């Protein structure tokens, strides 16, 4: 196990290096720079001063090496657009906010999604199945900005206790968490339904039934446990997506999270911030994947980590 984890960490470092390199090349090959503004251009000589201030006048190779050196010390540098904070500060401030929303959303999704899917499978082609699948189709197909705007217009502005956007207390997190949760909830429900149907047709379920175990026990002990595996396998990506924050939800609800920076940093060509959030996200994603793989062995004894790779 320890050997396996070490190997995975080594692999993760290589992956992150690749992410850095590809991002660096891509972002520097797009036209534009961090200092351009839409309706007022900047004279060339002032642009030169700005380039010099942020070291962008140096050869690209030198910039790249400098960057690698700084990242090795977890120093993501200065944001080129936001003078008041470093990239590290922006991440340190934004991530807890996004992560809190993300965790609340994943909790909602994990509580309701698999349950909905399991119910749908158990009552296949009956009313509960249709109802839960309608809910999940809505969840998958309604974009979060529609859902967000809708909930502000029809819920937040009608109920005093629920604020219209902003950040601070639990009540501020309620609507955005739900809006964020709906998509993974629906995904989980659909996955759960299909894998549950498959599992229910397996021989061991029949065996269990024939042994005279109650229907409830069969479902809880044998069916759900096996049917939930596909959900576990996508959990890593889902969690990293959710905790990294959503541009749309954060914008609509005015939440000071990290998610917005994935998009705005690119629009702004804020090179250091692009790199910072990308590398950070890569780290979160890779760690989550590793955790999922480890977790897999805990619920499914058929999988053994040590045998992998041979």
């Amino acid at each position, binding site marked *: 196990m320890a050997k396996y984890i070490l190997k995975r960490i080594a692999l993760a470092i290589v992956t992150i290096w690749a992410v850095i390199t590809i991002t660096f090349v891509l972002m520097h090959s797009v036209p534009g720079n961090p200092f351009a503004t839409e309706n007022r251009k900047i004279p060339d000589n002032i642009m030169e001063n700005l380039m010099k201030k942020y070291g962008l006048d140096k050869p690209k190779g030198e910039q790249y090496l400098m960057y690698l050196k700084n990242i090795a010390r977890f120093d993501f540098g200065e944001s080129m657009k936001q003078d*008041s904070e470093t990239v590290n500060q922006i991440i340190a401030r934004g991530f807890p906010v996004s992560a809190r929303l993300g965790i609340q959303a994943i909790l909602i999704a994990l509580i309701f999604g698999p349950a909905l899917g399991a119910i749908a499978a158990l009552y296949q082609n009956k009313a509960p199945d249709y109802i839960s699948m309608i809910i999940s189709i809505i969840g998958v197909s309604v974009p979060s900005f529609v859902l967000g705007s809708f909930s502000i217009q029809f819920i937040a502005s009608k109920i005093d206790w629920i604020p219209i956007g902003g950040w601070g207390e639990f009540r501020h997190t309620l609507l955005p968490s739900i809006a964020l949760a709906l998509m993974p909830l629906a995904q989980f429900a659909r996955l759960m339904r299909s894998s549950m149907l498959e599992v229910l047709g397996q021989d061991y379920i029949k065996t269990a039934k024939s042994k005279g175990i109650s229907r409830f026990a069969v479902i*809880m002990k044998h069916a759900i*446990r096996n049917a939930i595996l596909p959900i576990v396998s996508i959990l890593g990506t889902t969690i990293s997506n959710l905790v990294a924050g959503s541009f749309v939800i954060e914008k609509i609800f005015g939440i000071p999270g990290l998610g917005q920076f994935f998009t705005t940093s690119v629009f702004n060509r804020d090179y250091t911030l692009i790199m910072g959030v990308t590398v950070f996200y890569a780290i979160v994603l890779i760690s989550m994947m590793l955790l999922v793989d480890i977790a897999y062995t805990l619920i499914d004894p058929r999988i053994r980590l040590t045998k992998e790779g041979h």
Partner: protein
Amino acid sequence: MSKKILKLISIFLLLAVLFTGCSSPATQEEPQETAEEPGASTGKKILRTNNSSEPGSLDPPLAQGTHESWILENCFEGLMTFDENGNLVEGMAESYEVSEDGLTYTFKLRDDITWSNGDPVTAHDFEYAWKRALDPETAANYASILYYIKGAEAYNTGQGSREDVGVKALDDKTLEVTLETPTAFFLELTAFYTYFPVNKNVVESNPDWAKDPSTYVCNGPFMLVEWKHNDQIILEKNPNYYNAHKIKLDGIDLDILEDENTAWQKYLGGEYDILVDIPTSVVNQLKQENNPELEIGLMVGTYYYNVNPAIKPFNNVKVRKALSMAMDRETIVEKITMGGEIAAGGVVPPGLKDEKGEDFREAVGNLIEYNPEEAKRLFEEGLAEEGMTVEDFNSQGFVLLYNTSESHRKIAQAVQEMWRTTLGIEIVLENVEFQVKLDREQSGDYHISRAGWIGDFMDPMTFLDLWWSDSAFNDVNYNNPEYDALIRKAKSTNDQNERMAAMKEAERMLMEDMPVIPVYFYTQPYTVKPNVTGVFKVPVRYPTITYADITD
């Protein structure tokens, strides 16, 4: 069995919590501003509004847009300022003298002016602030607005020295400024945020002073007390401000909320007293209802199309004029943009005054005509002069380039249709990100491109300067020696009669040559609750809330 699932889920949650750095966001004990009635519980008058975007920096020379200047204008004051009636008056300066040749300005500072930390504001602070803004290492985005000062451009571009910049504190209360050329609008410039002073001692001892409210020192009506990034900015009345009796508010709370629709819901819900960036659909609806809360403020900005003269047949003036004449601007502003914009009658927007105090736009008159028949005739004539037919034109696949945005797209589609029906031509639309558009404009890789310009000061020169042949912003490479001569003439004197005459002539000439096709003049719609008074808009600024008052 499900013990293991439980175990699994708890591992995940545990790790997820660990990842968040164990920090439930440090906002537990926020003052509940959402529930706060204006001045109800505390008896304080707090104006609540939205600043739309996170300021990049609140250090005056590093500011570059309204999301910064709106806060700076409430926290700082220049030598001159705008008073509660929107007039340009002495601010930090008590009086000023201008030399006969218009090149030397001597400002006497007031006696009772102090920084928010109690230090007196001195002429040395101004000298230091302006030179700091010009220092190439500061890399001030807006340094070019200081180039009217002698030696400023040379220092900023690394050609000259700091000592040679024409600003000097003769003593604590006297500031002498030498200009490069007579600049009639220089006094107004001293009210601009790049000209704001900074506290020399504070800035020298702490370069990061502007990053944290606890070290933030300013000299204006309000002070920065809290800055929650991407969330909220809180200003409080500055008791040390010499004109504090004119300031009715105890403070200003500004949210940083990007989404216009959400902000509008908050305004509707009574959480804002004034709101500036309003969704277009709402503006249109309020306009139709004649809602008294809606104000449509003038703005010094023009929306126009660049026509690339290096490409045949756009080199032909008749073709360019035909394109302009075939454009029904009234329809564009009334049916498409719908934010109260004004159909362009030239390049200089309304709101700027000429030598008699009349509106420059009105004095020059409308230089743009909508005339489909004449457009068609001119277009065919122009094409013939270039040896082309409409078929030739259409086979070229000319492109109208705009930066991706819903409103630019709608306008471009309307224009495409107007040109199609009037001139029988097919223009292809292409949208790119604005940075890509800038890049292509600079390298001449476009046929027609959307552009906009927001002026910096209230003189027609802020627009006419764009198209003189040396201008860094002259993307269409307009080069007309006669035009240059008029601009040079207007720049060489402080005599408003001469300047204005030259500029009026220049604008007529520009619209005769039509290197750019103006579409409309920007406006700034904003809404103010009925119990809020004293909000007004100077065209060159965001709505002024400094002198606002809240009544019950």
